[in-house]
């Protein structure tokens, strides 16, 4: 063996993509890999809708007057943008696309614990999306994705119930995915694969699944109560009927704060795979990263009140939530330090997945530190409900989670499709996305501190320069997102065939063919080492 890993190689004769043909073989599949691809199609569709809303929002905001849309149309745009992006793109993306595909392979199993439940989960997801699209087509909803009461229970005359129902159903899809992952990771690991030999991607998705299981049902019941109040007009959340609007906020944020960790933990898991792979070096502080993932899941349930510092909550409760919110920053910081330390004495390759991973680390750090500012009570009073908040969460969700998702897609694309994509165009688009992202969202920090409130479709003229800058950035970002669509689709038809291990890295998924066979492995692997055991220099990198 020369030790030179081959990037390309002849594809296997049969694999999961050509094992059977026809629409029925896809719509009735129980193969976790095919289900991952089905989810890929669904989430891309919902992302396109949410993205279109974003384009329209930024177009409107290029001028101070609300001259492109009427106020109530604009309110429906930002509501649908938030709902589509959060519930129908960010939450499912990495778990349902990459997690579904990779977890069985990474634990050495032939499929998830409950394959039929997995397929059912996908159908539920689309059903939920259907309800929400129905609402959108019939005029949308204008409550904001946060559905605060009593506006949403009593004053909004848009399709609140249909939308809430859509989210409710999608929530069950999410719960079933989390359930499947937890059982698979507990019960279906290959012989020799102890917990501390699991790849960190698996740890991250395990922690994510814990959050999904514990948090999503609370959102479900909250949405049901919201719908009940709208229908029966009894006062649960409406003070005019004896209800409590803050109760709604507590119940809502009890899920929706941990939800942001559902969105970012999987991306962290992707980064934990890409960094050691493209430094060809064992990750620094494996156990600490694993523990930090679980710590984040636990702590995430204790901080929801930091969304309510000026909501009318007691100042003592606010103080407790602020302290806990500071605490939750520590595990994230630990991860960032460990990823960075992994580069030391590594063999760093600046391939596209690594560009996304390193971009994630930088942007997530910025987003997270602005989160610390928000946890600081004295600052939050001023910037709450302004563009500072919007900038903060977009740094985490777009600069973080979406870049993690794209990085994962670029890393595992050869495995999933058996094809290589254009190295040149993928690097270009990574840089376009990075630049476009920062030009879009950095000015929003300044706008927020200046005092521009969120959810405004008209604003004072002195805010225009920064808004125009942001809208210009959004155009660049949009272009950046379209390019991968083009070269990924192109690669499936015209790309070179990938070898089983085109990156020359270590991991169970790289020991099977690209694409893998339906049963994932010829024989069940037996694991004798940890996940990032790179051979010493001068040795054959393929040897184990």
């Amino acid at each position: 063996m020369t030790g030179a890993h081959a990037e390309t190689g002849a594809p296997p004769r049969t694999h999961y993509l050509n094992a059977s043909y026809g629409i029925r073989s896809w719509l009735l599949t129980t193969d976790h890999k095919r289900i991952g691809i089905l989810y890929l199609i669904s989430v891309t569709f919902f992302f396109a809708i949410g993205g279109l809303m974003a384009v329209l929002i930024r177009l409107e905001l290029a001028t101070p007057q609300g001259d492109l849309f009427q106020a109530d149309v604009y309110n429906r745009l930002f509501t649908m943008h938030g709902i589509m992006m959060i519930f129908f793109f960010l939450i499912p993306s990495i778990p349902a696309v990459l997690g579904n595909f990779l977890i069985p392979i990474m634990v050495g199993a032939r499929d998830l614990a409950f394959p039929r439940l997995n397929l059912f989960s996908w159908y539920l997801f689309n059903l939920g999306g259907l309800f929400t699209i129905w609402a959108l087509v019939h005029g949308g909803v204008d409550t904001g994705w946060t559905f605060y009461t009593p506006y949403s229970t009593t004053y909004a005359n848009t399709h609140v119930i249909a939308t809430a129902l859509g989210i409710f159903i999608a929530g069950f899809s999410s719960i079933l995915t989390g359930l499947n992952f937890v059982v698979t990771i507990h019960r279906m690991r290959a012989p020799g694969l102890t917990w501390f030999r699991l790849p960190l991607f698996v740890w991250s998705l395990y922690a994510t699944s814990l959050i999904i299981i514990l948090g999503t049902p609370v959102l479900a019941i909250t949405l049901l109560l919201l719908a009940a109040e709208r229908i029966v007009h009894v006062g649960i959340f409406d003070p005019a009927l004896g209800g409590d609007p803050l109760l709604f906020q507590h119940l809502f944020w009890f899920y929706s704060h941990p939800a942001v960790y559902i969105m970012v933990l999987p991306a962290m898991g992707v980064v934990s795979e890409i960094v050691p792979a493209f430094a060809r070096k064992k990750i620094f502080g494996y156990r600490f990263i694993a523990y930090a993932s679980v710590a984040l899941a636990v702590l995430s349930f204790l901080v929801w009140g930091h969304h309510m510092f000026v909501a009318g909550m007691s100042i003592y409760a606010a103080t407790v939530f602020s302290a806990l919110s500071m605490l939750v920053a520590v595990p994230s910081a630990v991860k960032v330090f460990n990823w960075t330390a992994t580069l030391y004495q590594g063999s760093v390759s600046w391939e596209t997945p690594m560009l996304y991973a390193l971009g994630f680390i930088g942007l997530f750090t910025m987003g997270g530190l602005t989160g610390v500012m928000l946890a600081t009570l004295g600052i939050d009073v001023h910037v709450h409900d302004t563009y500072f908040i919007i900038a903060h969460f977009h740094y985490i969700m777009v600069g973080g989670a979406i870049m993690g998702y794209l990085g994962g897609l670029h890393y595992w694309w050869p495995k999933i499709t058996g094809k290589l994509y254009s190295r040149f165009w993928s690097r270009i688009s990574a840089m376009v996305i990075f630049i476009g992202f920062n030009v879009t969202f950095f000015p929003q920090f300044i706008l927020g501190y200046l005092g521009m409130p969120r959810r405004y479709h008209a604003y004072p003229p002195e805010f225009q320069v920064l808004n125009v800058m942001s809208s210009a950035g959004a155009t660049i970002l949009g272009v950046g997102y379209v390019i991968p669509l083009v070269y990924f689709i192109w690669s499936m038809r015209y790309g070179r065939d990938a070898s089983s291990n085109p990156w020359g890295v270590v991991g169970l998924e790289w020991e099977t063919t690209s694409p893998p066979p339906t049963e994932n492995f010829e024989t069940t692997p037996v694991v004798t080492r940890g996940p990032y055991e790179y051979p010493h220099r001068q040795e054959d990198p393929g040897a184990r």
Partner: protein
Amino acid sequence: MFPNAPLFPERASAMAAEVDHLFFASLGIAAFFSLLIASFIVYLGTKYRRRSADEVGRPPRPESRATTVLEVTWSVVPLAILIGLFVWGARVYFAISRPPADATEFFVVGKQWMWKIQHPEGNREINELHVPIDRPIKLTMTSEDVIHSFFIPAFRIKQDVLPGRYTTLWFQADRPGTYHLFCAQYCGAEHSKMAGWVSVMEPHEYQAWLAGETGRRAPAASGADLFAAKACNTCHRPDTAARAPILAGLPGRPVRLQDGRTVIADDGYIRESILDPQARIVAGYQPIMPTFKDQLSEDDLIQLLTYIKSLRPPGDDPSPIAASAAPRASRRGARR
């Protein structure tokens, strides 16, 4: 900075300066760590860049005490910084949240999609708030419909305004000028238009402005009329506490309830007692007070509240208010 495109908001109160200092400190920390990480990434990623296709990184030393010490250090040091920020932030927050006792009280009612402001002298404004400079001003606020939020960027303060209850905000302006007022909680179609101006004036200008507005009447005086018109005075008499508690001196005092709890008779309690009298009944009284829920607007309630708060108590009696044959007898045994 360009006047037409500012990058930093004006500062019109001492509190705003405190918030800004806190902000700059945390911004500095954030910038420091962001640059630190970015620099390390660029430096390490360049220094250790792959030089040949088969190159492999050097495996890290096995986990040892040294690595554990490093991990603990870079957990504890950030934690210490975070705790420091938390403490500082909490102190500023408490200062923002607690109005001084001598603050002049204004009332604000938010509704879709305007702000109604009530001066103690009787002046009323819509979407504008004229205030004298260098005086602490406390705003007691409620909403007639959905949740709004009263936001004055130049003072760095904001508070959600809720239906069915009062929330408060306070500030002391120290720079004359006109500053933005925004609604900062999405409240429906014209949320972006629910904005206005805060005008900070020198004392003589403010007096002139007050006098210039016609048709004003102190809310306490209107409240007195309402108190009589709604027949509150038939039960709430100043001479006996037989049928209903004496209201003079009540605001701010502890009250013992029927179920044994003790609450402070704050603005919210008084408002609730008018709208939902059975919710928290004072110990020893029959539930005979009717509700005025659909008969009084939020403005009416503010007038009544101001009137009740203006009543002078008979003597300075700090004991909790509870039913008794005569007012003074309540002192015995009821002291906590």
